[in-house]
């Protein structure tokens, strides 16, 4: 039985990947940080009681900023594959916490590569590094592919760029099977609540049911290439099953603006948004003329990434990978799930119990 170790298993991709690998018969190990709140919502359905025998889903306490914990876990597990998905993954937050972002995203990746080397697992353990389309930042050509020069625009992107290069360096210098998946935005119903797509679907559902008044967003003109996380984790696995380790761009090749995402999501629940005004004064009104979407400059980033569009031709040719879930299906699923959650909140409230707002 193959063993996989997933860092960032409590995140969106970690949860989907764990599910996929369990289905493929892997023994799946995950690393989670100790937190004062439960942070395992996304993998709760995979949890196995530690008292049952032959568990194939095992969580370890560890931290990307703690090299001894990483070395200990890797030594214990002796994984065939490591998927490094853990990161401080929020672009805007990285401007507030540049040092922590570098420590977990850049040094974190290096610590795992070093662990593989120190433990003599160079020939055994395959390594997947979650790289990102944010590397392209101020894009140098459109669409972006594996050969497009990078131009990072945030501390997050720069930290990820280090992780990208160090992965390439360790592959070439030590012959480790290590690959970068340069993934464009990928979303799902379990996307973090502070990411723009999830923020939109959550807010619209709550506005629809009268639990919230208005959705505040940053740059409505930002254009992204949005895919479904479930599709993308399939590729993460495929990348580690090849004869030779290589880097791949993973994207849908279709682009929408944040405003278009809002429109598509609103339509799903029977809302039509009437946009008026421009720039920071742009507002979205519902059929009754109530303002339900507005721009708040606090969500602008110091340096903005305006447009990202991926060209996944190489992945299609070499991995035979194409995304299965369309943009519309993705938005629809996210909207449906968030509407369910909002309905649950509404029901709970109606019966006199309190719910959490989970403000950002």
């Amino acid at each position, binding site marked *: 039985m193959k063993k996989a170790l997933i860092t960032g298993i409590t995140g969106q991709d970690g949860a989907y990947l764990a599910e996929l690998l369990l289905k493929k018969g892997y023994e799946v190990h995950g690393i989670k940080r100790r937190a004062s709140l439960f942070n395992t919502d996304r993998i709760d359905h995979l949890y196995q009681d530690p008292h049952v025998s032959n568990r194939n889903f095992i969580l370890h306490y560890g931290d990307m900023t703690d*090299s001894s914990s990483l070395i200990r876990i890797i030594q214990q597990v002796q994984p065939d594959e490591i998927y490094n998905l853990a990161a401080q993954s929020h672009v805007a937050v990285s*401007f507030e916490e*540049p*040092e922590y972002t*570098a*420590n977990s995203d*850049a*040094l974190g990746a*290096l*610590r795992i590569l*070093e662990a593989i080397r120190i433990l003599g697992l160079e020939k055994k353990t395959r390594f997947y590094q979650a790289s990102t389309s944010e590397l392209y930042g101020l894009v140098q050509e459109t669409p972006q592919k594996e050969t497009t*020069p*990078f131009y*990072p*625009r*945030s*501390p997050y992107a*720069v*930290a990820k*760029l*280090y992780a990208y*290069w*160090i992965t390439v*360096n360790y592959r*070439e*210098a*030590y012959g480790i099977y290590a690959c970068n998946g340069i993934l464009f935005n990928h979303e799902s119903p379990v996307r973090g609540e502070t990411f723009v797509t999830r923020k939109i679907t959550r807010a619209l559902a709550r506005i629809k049911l009268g639990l919230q008044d208005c959705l505040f967003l940053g740059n409505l003109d930002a254009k992204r290439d949005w895919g479904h996380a479930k599709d993308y984790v399939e590729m993460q696995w495929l990348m580690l099953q090849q004869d030779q380790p290589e880097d791949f761009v993973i994207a849908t090749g279709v682009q929408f603006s944040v405003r278009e995402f809002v429109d598509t999501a609103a339509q799903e629940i029977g809302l039509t948004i009437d946009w008026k005004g421009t720039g920071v004064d742009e507002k979205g009104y519902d059929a009754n003329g109530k303002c339900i979407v507005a721009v708040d400059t606090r969500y602008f980033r*110091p*340096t903005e990434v305006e447009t990202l569009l991926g060209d996944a031709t190489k992945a299609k040719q070499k991995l035979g990978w194409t995304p299965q879930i369309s943009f519309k299906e993705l938005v629809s699923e996210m909207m449906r799930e968030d509407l369910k959650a909002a309905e649950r909140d509404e029901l709970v409230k109606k019966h006199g119990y309190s719910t959490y707002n989970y403000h950002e």
Partner: protein
Amino acid sequence: MKKALITGITGQDGSFLAELLLEKGYQVFGLARKESWYRQNNASHLSGRVEILFGDMSEGVDIASAIQDAKPDEIYNLASQSRPGESWSRAPETLLVNGLGAVRLFEAVRHHCPACRVYHASSSEMFGQASIVPQSEETPFNPVNPYAAAKVYAHQMAKIYRESYGLYIASGILFNHESERRPLHFLTQKVAYGAACAALGIIDSPDINEMGRPIVQRGKLALGNLDIARDWGYASDFVYAMWLMLQRERADDFVIGTGKLHTLRDLCETAYSSVDRDWRESVVSDPALVRPMESGQTLADPSKANKLLGWEPTISFDEMVKKMVTAQMLRLKNLVINSN
């Protein structure tokens, strides 16, 4: 009186820069680790003329407090783990100091002295196996060792701090710059040392290399790949470029190099012939000294610095090599005198 803070003041560049700034009438502060300052270092002769603030680039509090103490008009961030070859065995430390150290400094500047002008030491190593020769400010990076990857990290962060917060941060992409102040494990110094030994008839040298053996053993100097080519300039010319970069109205990045390429073989030839010796009798190529991945051909296109800074190197390759060999001969003679 203008005030300047230099990180890495005990290094080659730090000491040349401190001399330059003192000459220009600056009050000079240096950030140094105690263990670097309290031993013989390149800036020891400046003791009393520069004010040393003790601290470490891996501790943000040290950097912030140095900046608050010195209240500098200019900061020169030269501190780093400066050995690309060694960065393979010290990769985490290299990123902690060269990458995160720079970010801690930029954060401290942003919060405590946003009007301060910052020079950041980037490196031609960032170009790595560049497919474009020569390299300018526009050439994409392709780092091939952990040192270079950490330098790319810091360089890109400098740019983000400049563009996001309007800080004055100028990065100098410096090609190799050498001098008699380089530690002995640097390639150019090894060659100068080898030539000096040959000139003085020293068969087994008193100084040892990174493998713990005499640098010159049984009359032979062991080097790696002799075909590698570098753009080598003289360090004091380069620190002048650093200062020039901070005297402009707007911060910008500059490639600083001579624009001339020399192979390691050329270097050996120049060094040994400066003392009338034949390098082929003394130099051997040892496969153990070849790096896991060599950088490609790095050659500077310094036209932007020529044009906008009016900068040009003043000391030629031959003069530099001669200075270095002479300095090593003097040092070795003193060693012999002292041991007798």
